[in-house]
């Protein structure tokens, strides 16, 4: 059974249709990447799953349960954690408080102590800077805070929207190494990424999203070097100009 099952999802902003009949699924323990150019609808898809935008039609099931009507904070409680584009951390709070807030869901509270240890082992840099205000850190470190905070909620499904955005190539490489370790720990992941190579290297499977439609689904290895993928990105550039 799929952990996450999205069926026929449509998202509209006024008359603009950002997603059209999108169906994807993520299995338990699987890492899935959504590839697509700017404006293809990747962020809309993530936001719809997290409950930050209401779909126009379609259904979203998580662990067999329909979650379409759940507000976003309840979806976090159910086990979906989103690291949004722009990270969504609390810049005015310390790194420690940001991480503690990650453990806010009831589900995560019991093991908060051991999860915190795990996060700090994963990101030793954060352990050195627990008292620093999150907003004063570098972009890469803020991304670590955002991911660490999401891991703190002991998610069943970790969603990352463009984790490499705005990061230097070396930092991106490091970040994907960290994500690989999160994956190996058994967390299911849904990742949106413009960095095709890094995204496919991390994922088991991938979808290609073009102008709000899923045009291709294949194992990550098969998508590497696929002409459809490179074409989608070039075509996507035209779509990006609405």
């Amino acid at each position, binding site marked *: 059974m799929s952990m996450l099952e999205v069926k026929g999802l449509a998202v509209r902003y006024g008359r603009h249709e950002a997603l059209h009949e999108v169906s994807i699924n993520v299995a338990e323990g699987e890492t899935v990447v959504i590839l697509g150019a700017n404006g293809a609808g990747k962020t809309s898809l993530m936001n719809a799953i997290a409950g930050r935008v209401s779909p126009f039609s379609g259904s979203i099931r998580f662990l067999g349960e329909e979650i379409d009507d759940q507000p976003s*904070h309840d979806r*976090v409680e159910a086990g979906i954690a989103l690291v949004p584009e722009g990270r969504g951390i*609390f810049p*005015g709070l310390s790194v420690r408080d940001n991480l503690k807030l990650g453990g806010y*869901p009831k589900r995560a509270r019991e093991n908060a102590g051991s999860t915190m240890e795990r996060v700090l082992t994963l990101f030793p840099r954060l352990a050195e800077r627990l008292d620093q205000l999150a907003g004063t850190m570098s972009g890469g470190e803020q991304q670590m805070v955002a991911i660490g905070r999401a891991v703190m909620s002991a998610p069943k499904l970790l969603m990352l929207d463009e984790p490499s955005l705005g990061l230097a190539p070396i930092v991106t490489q490091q970040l994907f190494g960290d994500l690989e370790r999160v994956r190996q720990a058994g967390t299911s992941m849904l990742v949106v990424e413009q960095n095709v190579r890094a995204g496919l290297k991390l994922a088991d499977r991938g979808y290609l999203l073009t102008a709000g439609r899923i045009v291709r689904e294949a194992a990550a290895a098969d998508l590497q070097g696929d002409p459809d993928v490179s074409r989608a990105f070039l075509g996507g550039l035209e779509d990006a100009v609405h």
Partner: protein
Amino acid sequence: MFFSTLLFGLVLGGTYALVALGLTLQYGISRIMNLAYGDLLIAAAFLTMLGFTSYSVLPPIAMLLIVPLGFVFSYLLYLFVLRPLVRRAENRAALEIDSILATFGLLFVMQGVMLLIFGGNIFGYSWLDNAVDLFGVRIATNRLLALALAILLALGLYLVVTRTRLGLALQAVANRPESAPLVGINVEQVAAYAFALGGAMAAAGGVAFSMIQTFTATSGTALTLKALVIVIMGGVGNLPGALMAGFALGITETFVAAFIDPGLTLAATYGIFLLVLLIRPNGLFGKAAG
């Protein structure tokens, strides 16, 4: 003279700080500009007076009942009057205008009810007004008690905000409300608690206020304005800021009254306020952005 003025300033500042803490919770976290804030405070002052003069309930004992009452009243007010405004507001500016209009109406309702019951006279009661000697200064016992209550309540609030789960959620919502749902925080619920907690502080402030000052059914408006000045000086939503600004204003007012002219206290208050707005619009302790 200097030391006694400082002590009186601390007493006044303690009440101000208490009052401003509540308003900064309501404005900074619930995003409700509550113009009826001071009237809740005065209602608490009337209740305290009534309890003391008619039923001989001592003010600190009355506080144990009035503070939870302020909490429940404000919680229900949020649920039934303000939450509908929050839900329909398209953005923060719209909510600000709606909440100002709604609580402006509430202000008149509350003042009307109090005028109806108590009339327009000046009220007050005397309890523990015997003077004690403190480091060579003669000061009324009730003033010292009011200061002690203010410090105790501020400390309690500080512990709630820094040591509890709700407190952490309050800080998160104050810092970035749009990010709070990402960690599973129900922002609407937290906003309701923050508003109720603010009402509890107003009620506590009212009890302390009634012990050291006289008041009328319409005194609330001036208190709301003063609390707002302190909140903005301290930085909206900034609890330590409100605390410091409250004490600073209390001390300034007593010094101006003692050494320059009592008629100038209000002018001094707003003079400082203007200065802060011009030089540090995010408050004395506010961050430049975010």
